[in-house]
């Protein structure tokens, strides 16, 4: 788990799991929030390289982190999202508030 979280400069890089559901999202929220508090984190990058499944729990994880980061002037990015994940991001409206990079 811990190895999926890395801070580079003031970017927190989070490697998302293969299946991002409620079960998986609990630990991600916890670890991400701990690192945001403890380390010098301004922006977050969610890396969907490995992710083949995501439901609305994933949206909740991103949205929650967005709220924290955004007030402090930070930005949220999603990278390596496949067609399926992009579809979910689009449907949730998240595409309007976070940066989805290819």
């Amino acid at each position, binding site marked *: 788990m811990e190895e999926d979280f890395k801070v580079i400069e003031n970017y927190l890089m989070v490697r998302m799991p293969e299946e991002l559901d409620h*079960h998986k999202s609990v630990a991600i929220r916890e670890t991400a929030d701990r690192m945001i508090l403890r380390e010098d984190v301004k922006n977050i990058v969610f890396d969907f390289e490995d992710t083949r499944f995501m439901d609305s729990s994933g949206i909740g994880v991103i949205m929650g982190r967005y709220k924290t980061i955004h007030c402090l002037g930070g930005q949220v990015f999603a990278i390596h999202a496949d067609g399926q994940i992009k579809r979910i991001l689009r449907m949730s409206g998240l595409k309007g508030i976070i940066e989805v990079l290819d």
Partner: protein
Amino acid sequence: MEKKKNEMKIEFDARSENEGFARVAVAAFMSSLDPTLEEIADVKTAVSEAVTNSIIHGYEEQEGKVYIVCEMTGDVLQVSVEDQGKGIPDIEKAMEPLYTTKPEMDRSGMGFSFMEAFMDHLEVASEVGKGTRIEMWKKIGTTPWLGEEE
């Protein structure tokens, strides 16, 4: 068109580690309909939403059982997800996009919206203190809809 029915039922402990099992089981069951990858993803997402809701809202992460019934008739898949949890006092409100009673758990309030978007039809039955049943239908495959199913 052949109309042989195929049915399965699953019952499992309301634990978050079973969310993956539930959606994989439904996806495996529907495989004889030759679904596209997108159709599989749609059904998995809808099942995942309903099962997660039973676990975190229905049983509030306490002990309980979740029941899934799947039926395939022709090329129509019917899935119901049921719990004997606390029930929904106001179904209409619960189904509003972004409405959630667990914002502190980072719920997005998009569960019902996703179920509706990914399935063809959705029905919700719930009674406070008794439980909730979500029933969903989806036509699978690219063969034209003949209007005779269901």
